[in-house]
């Protein structure tokens, strides 16, 4: 199995085998073996649920830290639109952008405005491409990966438009190269991320070219520094405010709100997303134009690397949109022209990356499926997880693949003991009668 970069690493020393991750992993990518969690990389979609749930912080997001960027001549912070929702009531996005410069970045660049331009590009794409339908948003890296491994048929439904993160990084770099006469590699663009999955978009970009983003830092790492910087900053600065509906991109429905399409829907949470994907594969939902998909149930404000309660954050985003959203930050006509010049196009194709099949050989695979069913029929089917697999079915599969022993199921072992001890009692019973008779005689 080729080992691809995953945005989450397990710290074995911290793992105490508490099995919480096992139960919540939506793609059944975790096992607990010999008391420690292990990750089946081909099944992981980097959703970050395990990062949120582990009581021992054993899941370490593979993000960057501040010091990783010391080699760059110039650094630009690109805060995810989620970032604006993490601070107290009424703190303005422009103040946050300025405070980022006070904590060590040479500059900061707003991504919400790029989100607005991307929204316009999506609208253009919807208007000029009649098929396929529904089109699916490609901006949540966990969702893209879910499609790559489980729904390869839906790759063609992904709208081939670059993410606001990429567009913003490219623009920010271009502007600074022009303004300061720097070369592209001398400028570091650092995304302040609500989730580890964004790292995947950097390491395995779907496009042929490299990513313009040089690293991602968790919002939770920047947060303490920024809170103290904000305490010393003046909110009544003269800077132009961040405007437009792009500010709403961090919440469920934020993308749909930017579109004119009547039949656009927003779905959040992997279980819900998978149900809808199954329907699309069955040939349904063709009358839906666009589906905004989020792996996290509360979208990006609920990412595993955020600080604020996702519902509080959502409320703040809604108020921000109300206050600054009505006035667009982009000239629609100009964005349309850029769209025509392929400014937003995703170059290259997103390739399928299916989960390892039961066997590379179809014949043997079918035999294994048969065997798996036989084993499953003997199991208690209560998905207790004591064996270290999340469900009885995954356990049966692990046994068939040779990754687990049937005896690891406590119920099977108890049954074996039971029949062994029944035999033993029978044998003991027979003999003791004979012995008793011997004594009586």
């Amino acid at each position, binding site marked *: 199995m080729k080992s691809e970069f995953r945005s989450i690493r397990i710290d074995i020393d911290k793992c105490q085998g508490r099995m919480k991750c096992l139960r919540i992993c939506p793609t059944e990518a975790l096992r607990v073996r010999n008391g420690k969690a292990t990750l089946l990389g081909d099944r992981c979609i980097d959703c970050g649920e395990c990062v949120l749930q582990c009581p021992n912080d054993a899941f370490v997001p593979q993000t960057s830290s501040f010091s990783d960027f010391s080699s760059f001549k110039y650094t630009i912070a690109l805060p995810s639109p989620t970032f604006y929702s993490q601070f107290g009531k009424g703190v303005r996005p422009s103040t946050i952008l300025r405070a980022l410069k006070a904590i060590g970045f040479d500059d900061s660049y707003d991504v919400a405005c790029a989100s607005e331009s991307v929204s316009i590009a999506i609208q253009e794409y919807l208007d000029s491409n009649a098929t396929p339908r529904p089109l699916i948003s490609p901006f949540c890296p966990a969702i893209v990966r879910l499609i790559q491994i*489980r729904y390869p048929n839906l790759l063609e439904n992904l709208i081939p438009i670059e993410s606001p993160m990429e567009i913003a990084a490219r623009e920010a770099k271009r502007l600074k190269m022009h303004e300061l006469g720097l070369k592209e590699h001398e400028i570091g663009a650092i995304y302040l991320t609500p989730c580890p999955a964004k790292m995947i978009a950097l390491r395995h970009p779907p496009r042929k070219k490299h990513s313009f983003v040089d690293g991602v830092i968790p919002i939770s790492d920047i947060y303490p520094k920024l809170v103290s910087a904000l305490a010393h900053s003046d909110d009544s600065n003269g800077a132009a405010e961040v405007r437009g509906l792009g500010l709403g991109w961090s919440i469920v429905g934020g993308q749909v709100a930017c579109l004119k399409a009547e039949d656009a829907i927003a779905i959040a949470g992997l279980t819900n997303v998978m149900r809808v994907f*199954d329907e699309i*594969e*069955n*040939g349904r939902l063709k009358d839906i134009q666009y589906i905004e998909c989020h792996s996290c149930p509360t979208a990006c404000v609920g990412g595993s690397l955020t600080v604020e309660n996702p519902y509080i954050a959502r409320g703040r985003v809604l108020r921000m949109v109300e206050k600054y959203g009505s006035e667009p930050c982009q000239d629609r006509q100009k964005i349309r022209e850029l769209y025509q010049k392929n400014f937003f196009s995703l170059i290259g194709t997103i390739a399928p990356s299916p989960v390892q099949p039961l066997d590379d050989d179809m014949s043997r695979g079918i035999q294994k499926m048969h065997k798996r*069913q036989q084993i499953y029929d003997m199991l208690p089917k209560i998905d207790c997880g004591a064996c270290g697999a999340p469900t009885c079915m995954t356990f049966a599969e692990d046994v068939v693949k040779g990754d687990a022993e049937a005896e690891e199921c406590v119920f099977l072992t108890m049954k074996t003991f039971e029949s062994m001890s029944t035999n033993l009692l029978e044998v003991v019973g027979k003999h003791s009668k004979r012995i008793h008779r011997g004594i009586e005689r």
Partner: protein
Amino acid sequence: MEDRFSHSFTIRGKHFIDAGKVSTEIKRLLKELGVRADIVRRVAIATYEAEMNVVMYAKDATVTLELTPRDIRIVIDDRGPGIADIELAMQEGFSTATSEMRELGFGAGLGLPNIKKNSDDFKIGSTVGAGTKLEITVFIN
């Protein structure tokens, strides 16, 4: 060991809440075997249409899936009203769906033709008042 896998499922009529579960389950099994994506999609569409027919018209049905390295065979055997004129039912646009069913987005009269279109081999038999039996075969290679 025999390289054949078979499994049975049940579909209950009028249980719209479960509609699509069997086809999703079959699809999952095919993906686990590494069956090509376009074949999975054809099986999914054919099975889903057949499943919806059962949910909309029949009392219940037994679905039998049989997998070999060569083909995927799905038999849907329902207890229901049966189809009086199969030839007519196979025509695109013909439907006996009620307005409620149409409200849900079904009953366009594309069900059976769509099943046939997505199958490599398709058989249909029906007895009015007893039920309908569909046999869908899709080749793996």
